[in-house]
């Protein structure tokens, strides 16, 4: 991204000084925003419907760089508390935003101060026209404008149009946004700008069937094209590696084989045989797995774990293939969940699941189910070995309590009885008295 920094105040339309009747604006904290390098005097902040949630959200449009969304980077909890924007060397003014029309008051000049900063360094150098003193920003969060494909904004209206009419009407770009967008959203007005309009049309054309209608082009959403486009996006995203947390959570974790004290005996396949198997699905199918519960001897277990697990896990190239597939799928689902409406996402998921999908995820699915089964087996064997010592939480808490209560009572009783008994009496209890009549059989009741 960019090294340019503009502290463009978020309340763009309003200058706080001029609109004192707007109480929230006064309190609205100044925000630090990293803008793209392509930001110029024609760049605008704008409010658009979020492509997935259709909530009004802020975007940044610059003619040279396209549409940008803002990604908020939360400040680390403890490290940096606030920003200090200090006076410094001049740089080209950028990031004028929509508020450039308003008369710059002293404060606004201050706010519009343009500075150059290396990300992560807190001191900012101010533009010369700014006030000569520094400025602090209380919140250490930073928003970064990152490029977003305008296609995503066109998709909800496109999709609703085609899904509403089963035949699938062809629509012009103007019709598309006229009907779809409500007034507070500014895409319609932005479309008056040629640059944006061209960009939108170009992107729409990539996912639509089109027909010429006089001097205008009409479009209809083509799902297959859209899927191809999304897959290409996902490929691009995963090819350079996913973000680390995503990779760890969704890829590494999902593909992790359970490390347990199980011996996996691959009966029919030697290591050499596994290497020659071409498709990953084939290797899964042929794997004969038997679980052998090891004895309680700990060293024995660890020995088997060390030796057998690496031996019989799928070969490296197959694993890499799975990894790539899973990365691709993770990227796809990320795109779908963040930028597509739910209806559209489901429609695309169906296509991806069907046989006409441009990417075949089937081997991956099979591998994942296989891993799931392994995990379940591991879990089962774990609980099996502990079954004698552990009770399931569900049914027994009350029963155990009752039992404990009973035992306590019994012990108390015993103790009380023991306290009243001498050793001789206790020992006599063990005597075998079979065949002995009771005293009362011999001696009658004493007359009172």
């Amino acid at each position, binding site marked *: 991204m960019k090294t340019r920094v503009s502290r463009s105040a978020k309340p763009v339309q309003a200058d706080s000084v001029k609109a004192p009747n707007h109480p929230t604006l006064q309190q609205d904290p100044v925000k630090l925003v990293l803008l793209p390098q392509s930001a110029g005097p024609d760049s605008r902040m704008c409010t658009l419907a979020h492509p997935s949630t259709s909530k009004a959200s802020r975007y940044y449009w610059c003619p040279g760089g396209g549409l940008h969304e803002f990604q908020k980077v939360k400040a680390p909890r403890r490290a940096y508390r606030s920003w200090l924007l200090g006076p410094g060397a001049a740089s080209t003014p950028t990031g004028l935003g929509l508020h450039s029309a308003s008369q710059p008051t002293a404060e606004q000049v201050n706010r519009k101060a343009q500075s150059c900063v290396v990300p992560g360094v807190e001191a900012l150098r101010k533009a010369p026209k700014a006030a000569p003193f520094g400025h602090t920003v209380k919140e250490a969060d930073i928003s970064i404008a990152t490029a977003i494909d305008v296609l995503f904004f066109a998709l909800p209206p496109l999709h609703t149009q085609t899904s509403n009419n089963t035949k699938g009407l062809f629509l012009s770009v103007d019709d598309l946004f006229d009907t779809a967008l409500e007034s507070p959203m500014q895409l319609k007005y932005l479309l008056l700008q040629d640059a944006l309009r061209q960009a939108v049309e170009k992107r729409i054309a990539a996912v639509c069937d089109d027909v010429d209608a006089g001097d205008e082009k009409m479009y209809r959403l083509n799902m297959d094209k859209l899927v191809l486009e999304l897959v290409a996006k996902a490929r691009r995203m995963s090819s350079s590696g996913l973000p680390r947390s995503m990779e760890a959570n969704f890829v590494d974790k999902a593909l992790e084989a359970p490390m347990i004290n199980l011996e996996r005996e691959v009966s029919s396949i030697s290591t050499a045989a596994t290497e020659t198997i071409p498709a990953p699905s084939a290797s899964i199918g042929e794997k004969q797995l038997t679980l052998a519960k090891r004895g309680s001897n700990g060293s024995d277990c660890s020995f088997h774990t060390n030796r057998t697990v690496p031996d019989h896990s799928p070969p490296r190239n197959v694993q890499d293939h799975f990894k790539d597939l899973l990365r691709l799928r993770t990227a796809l689902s990320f795109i779908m969940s963040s930028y597509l409406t739910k209806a559209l996402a489901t429609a695309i998921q169906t296509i991806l699941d069907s046989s006409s999908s441009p990417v075949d995820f089937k081997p991956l699915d099979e591998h994942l189910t296989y891993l799931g089964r392994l995990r379940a087996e591991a879990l089962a064997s774990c609980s099996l070995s502990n079954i004698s010592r552990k009770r399931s939480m569900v049914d027994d808490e009350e029963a155990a309590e009752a039992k404990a209560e009973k035992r306590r009572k019994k012990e108390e009783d015993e103790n009380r009885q023991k306290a009243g008994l*001498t050793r001789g009496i206790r*020992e006599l209890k063990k005597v075998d008295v079979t065949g002995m009549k009771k005293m009362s059989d*011999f001696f009658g009741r*004493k007359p009172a």
Partner: protein
Amino acid sequence: MDNSHVALVSMMLKAESFSPFRCDRNIALGINLSSLMKVLRCAQNEDILTLKAEDAPDVVNLVFETSESDRLSEYDIKLMDIDQEHLGIPETEYAATISMPSSEFQRICRDLMALSESVAIEATKDGVKFSCSGDIGNGAVTLRSHTNVENPEKNIDISLSEPVALTFSLKYLVNFCKASGLSGTVKLCLSNEVPLLVEYTLASNSYLRFYLAPKIGDEE
């Protein structure tokens, strides 16, 4: 009676044993034996014991006096309701009565106890035979009438109106023998189908009597 109601203890301390003795009317005092034991342990050998109870008492009072040191200790034991049946024990004419040194009886019981849980006592005109058989083998001790002129306590006297053979639990008998310290002689009285009476005669006509039901059915 013991918990299984197969044995019974009866101890009689005649008024002559006490000095002074005063009892205005008959009264039954239910005393927990282990409580009594705890209190009695507070006494010393030569102490003078006084037992006291009021009319309609809820405690029995024990006083220990040590004459030589003028020590006086006093204890109250809470009484308990004994809802046990008070069995009337009739004076019985027994078919066989054997008196012998209590140490001799104790020895026989202890020796036979090593072999078995029960002992068969057969009294005939020849003598009395204590026999038992157990896992490791069997054993028998036979006693005959015997008169020791020098030491009449060592006499063994058997009087018999008809032969008797009965089996008893040795564990109970061994417990009875713990009273051997109270008396030099013990008297065994047997009749068929009737509890064995083991009597330790105490000074001044007092006695300690144990009754034990015979084992019927698995006599060998």
